[in-house]
Structure formats: structure tokens, C-alpha cells
């Protein structure tokens, strides 16, 4: 896996610009877990924009081969039950904690929100500890 500082920084700037557009035009936080979670249950006036955002998110990522000539790499090789367990934990945890890497990490930290700063440090630390146990620990 080759490391590219330029791609990382440009990608980050695009994400930051996306969140800025969402707040400047629509007055909203571009938090992915919140936007997705708000679809359940669908609401007459509050569902369309969420669907448009998520469809555009998928479309934007799909554009990568046309922008840089490389394929989307999403390869993941886990037992199915680990994938499902992780998905449930991510879905449950992000709603319980009111945000994920985008809402807390990119938007909340930029507002200097103490809740978001603490949440971001907590989920990054927890994820690092989890990876340590999975890859270097004796368990799992």
C-alpha cells in the first residue's frame, strides 16, 4: 500500500469543503451517521435531501477511476460474523454517541465542541486498542 501525502491532503480538503458547503448553504452538519440515521423512519419533508446526499456520496466515490485512473479499493476479508458485529456496533455506537468521524471529527472539532473533541479522541483511542488486540494480542 503506497502512501500518498498529496492524495490524503487533497481528499481531506474535499471533505472539508463538502462539510463547509453543507453548513453554509443548508445550515446543517455533514455528519454521515446522523444523515443516515435521520432516514429512519422516513419523514415527509426531511427525507429527500438525506437520500440525495447519500446517493451523491456514492456517486462521488464512484468517480475516482475517471479522476485518477485507479479503482475503488474496498477489499475486506473478514469472517461474515465479524463484519456484521462491527456494523451493528458502528450503527449503534454512532447514534448513541450522536456522531461519527465526520460529524464529531471533521465538523464538531472545527466548532471546538468539547463533546466532539472528547468523542473523537475516545473512538480513535478505542479503535487503536481494538486493532492492537486483534492484530497483536492473543485473543480473537
Amino acid at each position, binding site marked *: 500500500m503506497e502512501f500518498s501525502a498529496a*492524495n*490524503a*491532503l*487533497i*481528499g*481531506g*480538503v474535499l*471533505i*472539508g469543503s*463538502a*462539510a463547509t*458547503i*453543507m453548513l453554509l*448553504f*443548508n*445550515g446543517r452538519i455533514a455528519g*454521515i451517521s446522523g444523515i*443516515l*440515521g435521520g432516514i*429512519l423512519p422516513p419523514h415527509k419533508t426531511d427525507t429527500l*435531501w438525506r437520500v440525495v446526499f447519500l446517493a*451523491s*456520496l456514492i456517486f*462521488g*466515490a*464512484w*468517480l*475516482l477511476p475517471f479522476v485518477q485512473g485507479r479503482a*475503488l479499493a474496498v477489499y*475486506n*476479508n*473478514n469472517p*461474515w460474523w465479524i*463484519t*456484521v458485529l462491527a*456494523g*451493528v*456496533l*458502528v*450503527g*449503534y*455506537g*454512532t447514534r*448513541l*454517541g*450522536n456522531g461519527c*468521524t465526520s460529524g464529531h471529527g471533521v465538523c*464538531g*472539532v*472545527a*466548532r471546538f*465542541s468539547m*463533546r466532539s473533541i*472528547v*468523542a473523537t479522541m*475516545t*473512538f480513535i483511542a*478505542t479503535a*487503536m486498542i481494538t486493532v*492492537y488486540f486483534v492484530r497483536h494480542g492473543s485473543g480473537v
Partner: protein
Amino acid sequence: MTNTQQRNPLLFLLATAASGLLFGLGLSLSDMVNPERVLAFLDVTGNWDPTLLLVMVGALAITTPAFQLFQKKLFQPLCEIKFYLPTRKDLDFTLIMGAIIFGIGWGLVGLCPGPALAGLSTLEPQLLMFVAAMIAGSALQKFVFK
């Protein structure tokens, strides 16, 4: 957030689409859609990859000045009557528990909500399974274990 009063519904949707598109392209360009890349950042005692850190730096370089300005509420958003910003300031057990539960799931497979959804066009079975489970987890929080 359900009673919205959009001042310009069409521009509202166009801005939403532009935001989603840039977000998705940013996630794929930075390789955040790649779980191995994310796990390599989280694996601090292994062969550490700084990509995710630089993505955060790039994103925060834009959002920090912008959000600090908008947060002053000197003007309305262009398509809405007001800014819908979180107002809570207290640190509580629920916030920390949520972040810990999310962190465990994130660390297990290297997927968080944005990248998981952004990669869906690949129709990778692992990803579809993850997103379905993630939606189930959200619903579980909303309707069962609040």
C-alpha cells in the same frame, strides 16, 4: 430538524448533492474507503500509515475557519432560515459509551459510516453486509435500547 423552512428548496438540494459528491470523492481520493488503509493508521504498533491523520488535517484546515465564522451566526445560511448546530456542552456517559462502542466496531474492520456508504457502488458483499448491519444497529438504538 424535521420542521425545516428552506428558503430555496432547489438550491438546497443542489448544495446537498454538491456536498455529497465532494465528500464521496474526497473519501475515495484519500483512500479512506479502503479498510486496510484505515486499519494501518489505527495500528500504531505495526507498520503505521499516517493517511487518516493527513485527511483530518486537510479537512479541518477548511472546516475550522469556516465553522468558527458561521458559528457566530452573523448571517443566515444561504438556503435555510437558520443554522442547525448542536447546543449541548455537557460530557455524559452516553456520549462516551457511544464513542467506545463505535470505536470497537471501527477497529474490528476499519469501516466507519462515511467510507462504508461511499464504497457501495462496488457492490462488495462484505460492504453490503456491513451497511445492512449498521442500519440495523442505528434502528436498534433508535427504537429499542435508547
